[in-house]
């Protein structure tokens, strides 16, 4: 090949490589999830603390240094909570959530996504210590639109679960 032809070809190949770089840096990706919507549950709860104490035996007390001798040894943890979610009367989640931390003494964190087709749903969320009446609850009719997320979260000011959607936000202008 002659010099000018090689130089021209080199420019074309180099240009094509650079254009390929530019194209690959913004590949359009369409998320199939956006055809439907999501009911998202996300909050942090400071669960009820459970403390279990027992009296130490005289031998156990004897084994302890003087300054550490207390008649009772107590261990505390946060009680596990049950999350129950029903949609249009059907239970879609019923699970026990344990507190965070190796000793289960940290708060309870809830983070769940439930995929839903667009439409209106009667949502019932209950969050309670096992065997106890609901500590936090929400009953609402939720309209799910394509690509939107309805967020159920905790409002500390009202001490209640609340629902947030993009539509509400747009209505309120915030």
């Amino acid at each position, binding site marked *: *090949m002659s010099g000018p032809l*090689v130089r021209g*070809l*080199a420019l074309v*190949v*180099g*240009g094509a490589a*650079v*254009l390929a*770089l*530019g194209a*690959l*840096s*913004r*590949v*359009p*990706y*369409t*998320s199939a*999830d*956006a055809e439907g*919507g*999501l009911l*998202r549950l*996300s*909050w*942090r709860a400071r669960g009820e603390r459970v403390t279990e104490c027992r009296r130490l035996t005289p031998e156990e007390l004897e084994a302890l240094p003087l300054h550490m001798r207390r008649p009772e040894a107590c261990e505390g943890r946060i009680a596990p909570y049950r999350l129950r979610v029903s949609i249009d009367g059907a239970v879609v989640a019923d699970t026990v959530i344990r507190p*965070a*931390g*190796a000793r289960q003494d*940290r*708060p309870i*964190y809830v*983070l769940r996504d439930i995929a839903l087709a667009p439409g209106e749903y009667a949502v019932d969320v209950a969050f309670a210590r096992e065997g106890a009446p609901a500590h936090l609850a929400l009953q609402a009719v939720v309209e799910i639109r394509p*690509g*939107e*997320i309805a*967020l159920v*979260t905790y409002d500390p000011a009202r001490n209640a679960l609340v629902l*947030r*959607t*993009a539509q509400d*936000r747009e209505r309120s202008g915030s």
Partner: protein
Amino acid sequence: MKSLYSITTAVRRAAWNAMTRVDGWVNRLYGSRYNPLYHSGAIVIGLLLVLVATGLYLLLFYRVGAPWASVARITDQAWLGRWIRGVHRFASDAAVVAAAVHAFRMYAQHRSWGPRALAWVSGLALLAVIFVCGWTGYVLVWDVQAQLLAAEGARILDVLPIFSEPLGRTFVGERPLPSAFFFLNLFAHIALPIGVGLLVWIHVSRLARPVLLPPRRVLWGVVAALVALAIVWPVGMAPVADPLRIPERVPLDAFFAFWLPLTRRLPVGAVWALGGALALVAVLAPWWTRPQREARPGKAEVDARRCTGCEQCVHDCPYDAITMVEREPGDPRPGLVALVNPDLCVSCGICIGSCAPMAVGLPGWTGREELAVAREFLGREPRAAGQVVVVGCEWSAATVESALGGAPLIPVPCTGHVHTSMIEHLLRGGAGGVLVAACPEWDCRGREGGKWLVQRMYHGREADLKPRVDRRRVRVVEASAGEPAVLRAALEEFAASVAALADGDADGDGRTAADGGAAADGDLDAPDGDARGDVSLELEGVAS
């Protein structure tokens, strides 16, 4: 295990074949000196510098309190901000491509195990840090791609029992994202390049004279191409992240977010298993494909009795594997002696060609053995008489039979191996000319084999080709394995010029190739009194 070895070896061989083919095409377009594939490693470092320079500009205008809006304002600066942001982004993409090309080449060329393992592993770590750096950079924009990256990253990381609360809750819209989040991201995005610098230092720590930047023409060519792209096809703004909406159409950067569409469909455990398996394969691939123990060349050795302490091998070793030490007690010879550190020696054999007294070399392979090979070759190869003999690097076009056109070949693992006395010996033994077929200088497996050979032959570097040798009968040709036509053409042209010399000799004074040609040029030097002159006498005994 045997079958795994044969599979992995076949994969590596296929990689090498593909690489040499592409190299050949690119060499034809850009020439081997400016072939960007040969400079891929140095291009990465050049691009990292571009990233630092453009990043400093972006830092002036970025606001952690208004991430998307501040990037949008930068993008609105039509004269500067827009293309600087584009170059910043494209340079990061190009750095990933260049790093991947570099890793692929090192793997295909068997340059990733043994003492080079440190460079291989640190190189993979570098690539990983570049990825993390890129992800933090994309999150800073806080557009829909950032939202996907952050949410998916949090989902993957949340299985690790090290966070006090799930990271994923940060991005769900419970509360506005705090500026502290973007500040931390920005801090990581700026601090990580310091780690990159440290890793680069480790990466090249076992190299003498590491090449940290490509030739200027390549570097500025790459930068100009990225600037042109940023101007012609600027990076736009994707919609701002919205935690209450699922991003629908997202412009993904395939170089940094290629994994997103796959991992979003997989459970977190599978993502970790897949990522761990890929990382393991990447780290271990060189060990699976390295030659079996008996096929590996031994480490270089020094014959202390012959070492004159000239230090040339220390200067020439591309891996800093040779040092000068005190001689053994009782050794009456003066001065220091060379010592090879086997932990650093990659068995490239470049020290063979550097040692005038032929004291250094691989086990059973010093300049002395090369002379014996030349003598044996001349004895059994009738085509050598008066004809051109090719001394060819096993990684060059000399491996392709069609490139030789029937010329006799002495294969060598690297032309840096070649002791200049071997070339002289071939000419003295009756060869009409010697053509050394080297791989391109910037692609030498031993890093500096071809470079030192040329200096020894034409620029007086020890151990130099003696001035008495007729340079018209010696030629060095660079031709990669993907360029057999280049070697073939050079060989034909050289053979014709050698034939013309022979005709001239027949018409003229009748001098032979080895001793007369140089004299005819007035290029004859008296044999020097250095160690090499002494060794030549000894060699008679070795070769016979």
